[in-house]
């Protein structure tokens, strides 16, 4: 997989985010490569979601430069931004489905908005996406309030994939799911990622997800990020990173032997 990590799709340079007197990001640099799954972790309030929201333009940074597909997001006019937005899909934390629409209609919203498509074809594509995210046929008729948390996330993922984006942003995709549903969701994301050749930018708390899905991990510490593969981060001396990966939950999630920094090589086969 590292062979494909040549092209940079997201480049963040010198990002500063401030809310009032509180500085969340201070000179943050990060690159995301085509075809990789990047997991972003960090403590509560370290600005993981803010980082995601800043990249997709929902939060205006204090300063810094964000390039997606080589285009500086801040300088784009409305139409160019609209065009760029078609190339990414976002799964918000609880799916953020439109509550007055059925699942199928939710998936059709971006199709209707961006492609002049006959209704029949839109229904077919919506059904296809429902199948691809592993929902049952009848789910298309249901309203978000009738779905379980896991189904809402799958439906949200289907909507995020409606326009066949190149980048997929996921905000805490497994939060609130039971361990079995979370593991299934990890597998689904991995399958879709490899099948559709997606670049995935994933904010998560879930160590299992990190181990199961991510090629590289970006840890938000000290208002910046430290990026590396899991093995590299296991050796990182930073106290928060050590506490994260070598704490009791970290040891439980990592494959046997990996948590001891002495034998990081045993992980190499997994990643």
């Amino acid at each position, binding site marked *: 997989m590292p062979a494909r990590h040549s092209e940079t799709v997201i480049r963040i340079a010198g990002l500063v985010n401030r809310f009032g007197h509180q500085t969340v990001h201070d000179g943050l640099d990060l690159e995301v490569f085509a075809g990789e799954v990047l997991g972003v972790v960090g403590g509560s309030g370290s600005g993981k979601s803010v980082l995601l929201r800043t990249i997709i333009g929902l939060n205006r940074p204090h300063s810094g430069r964000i390039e997606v597909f080589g285009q500086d997001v801040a300088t784009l006019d409305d139409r160019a931004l609209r065009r760029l937005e078609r190339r990414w899909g976002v799964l918000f934390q609880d799916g953020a489905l439109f509550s007055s629409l059925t699942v199928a209609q939710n998936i059709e919203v971006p199709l209707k908005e961006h492609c002049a*498509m*006959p209704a029949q074809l839109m229904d*077919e594509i919506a059904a296809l996406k429902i199948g*691809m995210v592993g929902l049952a046929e009848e789910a298309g008729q249901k309203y978000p309030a009738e779905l379980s948390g896991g189904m809402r996330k799958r439906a949200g993922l289907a909507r995020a994939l409606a326009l066949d984006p190149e980048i997929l942003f996921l905000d805490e995709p497994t939060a609130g799911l039971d361990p079995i549903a979370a593991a299934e969701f990890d597998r689904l994301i991995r399958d879709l990622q490899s099948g559709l050749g997606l670049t995935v930018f994933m904010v998560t708390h879930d160590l299992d997800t990190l181990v199961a899905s991510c090629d590289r991990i970006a840890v938000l510490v000290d208002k910046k990020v430290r990026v590396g593969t899991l093995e590299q981060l296991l050796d990182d001396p930073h106290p928060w990173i050590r506490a994260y990966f070598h704490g009791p939950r970290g040891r439980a999630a990592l494959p046997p032997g990996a948590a001891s920094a002495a034998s990081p090589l045993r992980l190499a086969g997994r990643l």
Partner: protein
Amino acid sequence: MASGTATLAAAEEGETLVFAAAGRWLVATAAELDRDLSALDLPRGRRVTLDLAGIDRLDTAGAWLVLRTENDLLARGNEVEIRNLHPGFAPLFAQVRAGGAVRPVPHPRPAHHTLAGFVARIGEVTIGLLARGYGILGFLGLVATTAGAVLRDPRRLRVKAILVQMERTGVDALPIVGLLSFLIGIVIAFQGADQLHRFGAEIYTVNLLGVGILRELAVLMTAIILAGRSGSAFTAQLGTMRVNEEIDALRAIGLDPIEVLVIPRLFALLLTLPMLALYADFAGLLGGWLMTWGALGITVPQFLHQLQSALGGWTFWIGIIKSPFFAVIIALVGCYEGLRVGRSAESVGRQTTLSVVEAIFLVIVSDAAFSILFSILQI
């Protein structure tokens, strides 16, 4: 994204019919491809090959169109072969083939778009209204018993909470209540003077003003403003607490939400609404006098003298007597709808709308009932 970049060409190759797909089969070109494909005359019972060699970009929508064409051909009894699929597209194709087994389901139509559904909806709404009236009556009983218990043991009275609510529902409402009553006074005086002028009875504008403002309009306007301002706030506050499970937390700690949340709001409104009504009386009369002075040249002593002769002993009190009843209606409906909020943020908005509409409706209905009562009592 330019159109016309995706094509499908048919050619005979010996016994076999070959459809050669080329270009960019993407979601952006799907509409156009779909049109071309449905215009295509599909054969029956033949050997057909779908040649995908010319496709240089493919996404799920494009892959779906290829697979749909394959399915359509198979359904017509053809033998279908897909060839020259670029190996890079193979995983995508597999994904779509797996997902494509799901058939589209019809979108549900709102039931009340049919005649039977419309009739059923009228019934539903009627039963819902009756149920809500019954619910509010039950809530009145619950709150009354709790209020009785609290009054017997005044230490349970949350004085600070009552004062906070009085500030929010009373002090904060002074500007808007004053301004609107003042304007109502002006309007009544102006319209009255205009009509009474024809009979040379302009001085009776003061009578109209005194009776209209003191007996009806001041308290009614105040109640309507408070229903919109405070009743809705009660619903939104309690509703948000429901969504956050704060009400459940209160119960779990052993506190009675009625006692902690509803009683202070009810008592606060019971105290502030009469005071606001009195204040609205003054503001309305002031506006009315200003108008009569400007239009008819009536001075303050004349105005007061005429007012005194116009008002019976009860006129002022009738307005004030009604205000605590309106206070109970607004507080009860506001809190009741707030506690009926479900788990979703959406229902906070729905219940808030309901609460305002219901409170204003009930205030006006009870005002009409008071009119009948007072006419029977001949005061």
